[in-house]
């Protein structure tokens, strides 16, 4: 899944990994020996969605729960699941679609907590372009829509097209896993881009293009309102190390709450941990600010997964043949390692 503002090169991701190692080693040792675990992010380089982990490390939440966490970055966006199954990492940050796909091919993964609670995936257009749910058919017909080719966009786009009474042959889908969708959009090479609001809007702000980016949330045009990102482990790791999983989630919960309450400071923590991330503080701060509202559900709770989110997602994925079989929701997730809220 690459709903990201890119601009990353191989060289900068190397710099970034060096930063991660530094961040991991700055935690001083406490009296009790810390349990060392590796956390694999979902993207080759760090960005603001990593803030809960950064805060948990920098503000001592991991240490307080007896953990020393090293952050690893995958070579590409599907290697995170492989890091988990091969034991390279114990904890992973992945999309729910990646989770469903992994379980479908027999990878024994388990989602232990939602990262975000709702679907902030959206269609975007240049400022001034009208993007309304009720006129979507006319707006999209024959137009070029950018996609990173990630499983989330592959899963969501059919909902929107169906809602607009369009088939895939009635639009031109431009797929590019490596480029920056905003560049194409603002250069007029595509008419619409697809991304999540927390990434697209800070990217647009950084482009200094006047006006307001037009957007239409997928959920306003037929897409299901389900979580995008989750924390995952392997089933066997959870069974043998329930205490570690619980400690990790407890630390993350405290850090997330702190970061939600101290957004400016949290973004600065991120800049300090990853000074060479390639992103500006303004980007990180705005990105985090736009992420926070999606972290809690209607009951203001973090993490809690539901049967409905998994069955909605997996039926949708089976509908577009991304997975071959829909398993029981319980084979994808559990809430039992989460701390009380």
């Amino acid at each position, binding site marked *: 899944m690459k709903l990201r503002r890119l601009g990353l090169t*191989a060289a900068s991701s190397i710099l970034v990994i060096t930063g991660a190692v530094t961040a991991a080693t700055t935690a001083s040792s406490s009296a009790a020996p810390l349990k060392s675990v590796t956390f694999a992010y979902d993207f080759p380089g760090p960005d603001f969605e990593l803030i809960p982990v950064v805060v948990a490390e920098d503000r001592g939440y991991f240490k307080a729960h007896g953990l020393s966490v090293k952050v690893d970055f995958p070579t590409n966006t*599907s290697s995170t699941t492989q890091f988990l199954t091969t034991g390279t990492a114990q904890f992973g940050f992945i999309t729910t679609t990646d989770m469903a796909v*992994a379980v*479908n091919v*027999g*990878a024994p993964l388990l989602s232990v907590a939602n990262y975000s609670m709702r679907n902030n995936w959206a269609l975007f257009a240049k400022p001034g372009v009208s993007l309304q749910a009720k006129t979507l058919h006319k707006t999209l017909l024959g137009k070029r829509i950018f996609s990173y080719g990630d499983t989330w966009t592959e899963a969501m786009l059919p909902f929107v097209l169906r809602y607009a009474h369009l088939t895939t042959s009635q639009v031109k889908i431009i797929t590019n896993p490596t480029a920056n969708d905003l560049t194409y959009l603002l250069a007029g090479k595509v008419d619409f881009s697809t991304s999540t609001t927390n990434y697209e809007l800070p990217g647009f702000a950084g482009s200094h293009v006047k006006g307001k980016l037009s957007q239409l949330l997928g959920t306003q045009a037929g897409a299901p309102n389900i979580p995008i990102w989750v924390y995952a482990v392997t089933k066997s790791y959870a069974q043998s190390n329930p205490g570690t999983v619980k400690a990790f989630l407890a630390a993350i919960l405290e850090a997330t709450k702190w970061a939600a309450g101290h957004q400016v400071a949290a973004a600065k923590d991120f800049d300090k941990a990853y000074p060479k991330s390639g992103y500006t503080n303004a980007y990180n701060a705005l990105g985090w600010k736009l992420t926070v509202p999606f972290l809690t559900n209607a009951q203001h709770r973090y993490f809690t997964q539901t049967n409905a989110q998994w069955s909605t997602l997996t039926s949708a994925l089976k509908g577009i043949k991304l997975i071959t079989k829909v398993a029981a929701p319980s084979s994808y997730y559990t809430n039992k390692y989460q701390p009380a809220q």
Partner: protein
Amino acid sequence: MRRRVLLNVGVPILSLLIVLGVWQLIVVGGHVASYIAPRPREAITSVTSQWSTLWPLILGTIRETIYGYLIGAVLGFALGVVMAKIPVVQRLVYPVILVSQAVPVIALAPVLVIILGFGIVPKIVIVTWIVFFPVTVNVLDGLGHVDPDLKNLARVYGASRWRTFVQIEVPASTTPLFSGLKIGAIYAVTGAIIGELAASEGNSLALYQEHANSNLNTAAVYGTTIVMTLIGIAWFLLVVGLEVWSTPWQRRSVARRRWRRGADGAAR
């Protein structure tokens, strides 16, 4: 002769079989899950079972490779000749083409797409970009190393520059020219794949692989990698075949009659 065929064909096939065998042993012996590393058979089946989907994509990649390669080879040759013949041009152009090759093609690809769109053109440009350089450098080198006595001899005979070029300098540069063409052939497919990854309208072999990768269909990732490799090897072998066909003097001591005719035909 039979021994040579055995060495030239048998040994490479054997080495490939050993690679497949070791692959199979590691995957089966190590109980590696197929979403991490598939068995060779699964990789091959992932291609054959999706052949009707893959074949048009493979054709697309081949088309980009061929167009880009031919343009790159012709451009590279022409550039090498012009640079060898006009020293001012060489001084002017050489730094530019060096810089062009120092630019990482992966970084270049999105830029080209912004300018040239999502069709076949940026892919062809990338392949051309990769292919022309070894050809130019080798042609330049080859032309620079033609025996000056031979060129003097041609002058004494009253040969024009054009005839000296066609009859002496070009054939004398065939070995370096084909070195450049062979290096280009190996990298051409890589260029096409980079171009495909940089953006496509509709599907492409590289995107198919990218999708397989994000869907943890590792067998298809391996399978498409094999397909891409085979396209590269096939193209390389084609160029080697062309070299063998066009330079009989490097292997034979006596010309075939048919070839002698061809040589004179080319002289006209």
